[in-house]
């Protein structure tokens, strides 16, 4: 009787407590992660790798096909060289790395992880998840106050969402004899938050123009263009010129066109949920980033979204117009489609990450030797969000390169073995590994350090033509010193803000809404997002973006 009573009482009490706890908010999640310390660190041991030896990437514990044909590279002299790493004893210790699947970042993480384990005796477990899961997995773990990983691979535009969960990278890695010391100041800035380095920079990115030289530099094509438009054919300085050339040469047959491949004007990223918002940013940047306005590209000083101002609308109008000159299926291209399409010779132009460039310069590319790089087009007018008028830029063209996000990595504050994680990342990014990863397109590692910006490295290492390589390096140097640049919206809720852009741009590209109506809807959503996340919180974070924009 007593037992039955107790059971009945329990049946009432347990659900009641449960429901009451839920409603009262007792079940809360931990928003901040406690620092779990640096971990035991390494013991010292005798070096197993001689100073300055040649590193044979074909004879490492994990050698994927891409590395099997890699050249031998001489070990560096920095803190995390093979020699210095081989003096660290991590036996009995392990770290877990959250990374995307191979090849992009997943493959080099496995490759260098296995070698780090061999040199130090520690264990490196690489946990692969699809790229789309990197964000939600981290967000879920960090919001609940834990981190199953010691190293996470991420994108630098997430800094506003995650910076509070990431450990500050000590300055010894970014200066002096540190592996990241030679990274260009532009990229050091991207990997920092309020003056502290939050990302271990293993890659750096930017968007730039790729054009076919067998059209732009061909006298017959120039004559054809002159005849059709009355204008001189040259590398497009503005998006208007870009569109005009793309439309004129859509269906043209360049001299070096691969057999059986139709020729179109432009291969772009247009798939709604596959980075299309980044293509849009390129299109609007020179129309909406005014060098005389220091109050922001994305918001004004009162945090009013600028995403529907006439500059943005003009950029989107150009983007919509270019749909007529895309290759077959070009309206549903994600990043990988854009790379493949341009690499196989579908189009005259393309303008996002370095990948399409690397693809078209590979020895097996059907358009090898027929592509050059240039800064992305500018605009003949630029919107002034303070005077609410169009300005005519000095020199006739306003340039505003977009320094897009790239792969990066961090160490969660909650990691219990931060020292080993730091040593691993530092080894991953050492001079030799960085050099070899740069030469293998599929690793996802792109130039970011002073030594990467030399023609010889690419011409001798990869057999690229001097002229083409020089055009690429000139473009990157141009971006490094440019004074009017656009950066990602590195604030909390970046995914939501960019998601709203993708929704709106997709509606305009599909013809379901006019560019103005679509962007008005985006602006309304941005106000909603601001209210949800907190205007002050976003404003405070936005100051970091402004610092970069005005640098």
């Amino acid at each position, binding site marked *: 009787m007593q037992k039955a009573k107790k059971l009945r009482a329990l049946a009432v009490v347990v659900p009641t407590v*449960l429901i009451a706890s839920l409603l009262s908010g007792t079940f809360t*999640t931990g*928003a901040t992660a406690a620092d779990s310390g640096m971990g035991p660190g390494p013991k010292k041991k005798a070096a197993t790798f001689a100073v300055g030896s040649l590193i044979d990437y074909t004879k490492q514990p994990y050698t994927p096909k891409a590395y099997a044909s890699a050249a031998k590279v001489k070990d560096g002299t920095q803190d995390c060289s093979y020699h210095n790493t081989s003096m660290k004893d991590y036996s009995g210790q392990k770290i877990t790395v959250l990374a995307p699947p191979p090849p992009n970042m997943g493959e080099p993480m496995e490759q260098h992880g296995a070698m780090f384990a061999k040199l130090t005796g520690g264990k490196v477990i690489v946990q692969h998840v699809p790229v789309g899961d990197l964000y939600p997995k981290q967000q879920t773990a960090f*919001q609940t106050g834990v981190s199953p990983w010691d190293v996470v691979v991420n994108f630098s535009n997430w800094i506003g969402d995650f910076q509070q969960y990431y450990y500050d990278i000590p300055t010894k890695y970014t200066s002096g004899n540190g592996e990241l010391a030679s990274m260009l100041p532009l990229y050091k800035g991207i990997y920092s938050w309020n003056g502290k380095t939050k990302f271990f920079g293993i890659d750096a990115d930017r968007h730039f123009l790729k054009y076919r030289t067998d059209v732009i530099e061909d006298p017959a094509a120039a004559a054809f263009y002159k005849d059709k438009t009355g204008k001189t054919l040259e590398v497009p300085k503005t998006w208007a010129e870009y569109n005009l050339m793309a439309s004129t040469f859509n269906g043209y047959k360049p001299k070096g066109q691969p057999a059986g491949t139709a020729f179109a004007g432009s291969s772009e990223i247009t798939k709604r949920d596959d980075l299309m918002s980044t293509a849009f940013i390129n299109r609007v940047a020179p129309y909406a980033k005014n060098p005389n306005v220091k109050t922001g590209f994305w918001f004004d000083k009162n945090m009013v979204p600028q995403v529907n101002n006439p500059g943005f609308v003009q950029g989107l109008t150009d983007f919509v117009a270019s749909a007529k000159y895309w290759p077959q299926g070009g309206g*549903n291209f994600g990043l990988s489609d854009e790379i493949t399409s341009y690499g196989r010779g579908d189009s005259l132009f393309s303008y996002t990450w370095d990948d399409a460039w690397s693809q078209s310069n590979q020895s097996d590319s059907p358009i090898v030797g027929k592509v050059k790089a240039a800064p992305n087009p500018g605009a003949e007018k630029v919107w002034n969000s303070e005077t609410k008028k169009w300005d005519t830029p000095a020199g006739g063209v306003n340039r505003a390169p977009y320094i897009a996000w790239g792969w990066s990595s961090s160490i969660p504050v909650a990691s219990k073995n931060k020292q080993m994680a730091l040593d691993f990342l530092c080894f991953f990014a050492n001079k030799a590994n960085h050099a070899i990863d740069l030469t293998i397109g599929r690793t996802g590692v792109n130039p970011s350090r002073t030594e990467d910006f030399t023609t010889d490295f690419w011409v001798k290492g990869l057999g690229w033509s001097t002229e083409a390589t020089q055009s690429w390096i000139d473009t990157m140097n141009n971006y490094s010193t440019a004074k009017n640049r656009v950066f990602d919206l590195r604030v909390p809720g970046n*995914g939501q803000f960019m998601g709203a852009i993708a929704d709106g741009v997709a509606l305009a590209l599909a*013809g379901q809404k006019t560019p103005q109506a679509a962007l008005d809807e985006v602006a309304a959503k941005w106000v909603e997002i601001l209210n949800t996340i907190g205007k002050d919180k976003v404003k405070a974070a936005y100051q970091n973006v402004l610092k970069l924009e005005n640098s």
Partner: protein
Amino acid sequence: MTSKFYKRLFLLPGLLLLIAIIIFPLLFTIRVSMANWNVSHSGLDWAGGANWARMFHDVNFWSSLFRLFYFSFITTTLQYILGFTAAMYAWKGFASRRFFRVLWLVPLMTTPSVMAIVWRSIFREDIGAANGLLSKIGIDPIAWSTQIFPATVTITIAEVWQWTPFMFLILLAGLLSLPKEQFLSAEIDGATPWRTFWSITFPLMAPISIGAIIIRLIEASKIFDSIFNLTSAGPGNSTETPAYYLYTRGLREFQISYGATMGLMYLILAILTLTILGQIFARVSKPRGI
């Protein structure tokens, strides 16, 4: 008393499991829907009905529901017609019918997301097999995923291909279990095959058909794999369904509370719609003597 106690005790594991996997998640989702859990705020604070109010004004959510009604209705209808036709053939018998019965089940045995990727390569506008075949017979390439109507057709084809075998299987099982007497009487009375079908087979199959349609409608209401892989809900938002919209808002953008709110509304509407449909189907089938 002791025996009653033990009887209840035996129920306990099932009850605990029920609480753990259904009651608690449901209550938790309701609670989350009344909080502000998002990308920058992880606590379960109290937001009252703010998310619910936002959802009622969210045009994209409601338009995705209308699109779902379209996809569910069209795909289930086509699956039913094709599945019934195939089941009739298999029931009546023809050469190698056992082989074809197994062959029909192949789509059902493949993973939906894998099949969606295969369909994507078939419907790729630049190098896909569909446009390749069309060009062989002199038809211009179709913008399978970049124009609104063809994109809708693409999703419909993928869904119908994948799930028609399910209808076939259920309906064939129903046909094989029908009593033989009515068919013998009809044959003696000289009824035509068409008359036999309309007056005997179809009415007798009504309860099984209703069950199969309801199960398919429940499944179709969750349509995601094909949309995610084939069109990414585009062009524009023309193929966006609630499951995709929820995934984008809730998981990709980490609007946890708002995603929970939409999930609950989706659940309520699904229960209501399917209950009403079940009632309508039951009434419609009654006058035919079932």
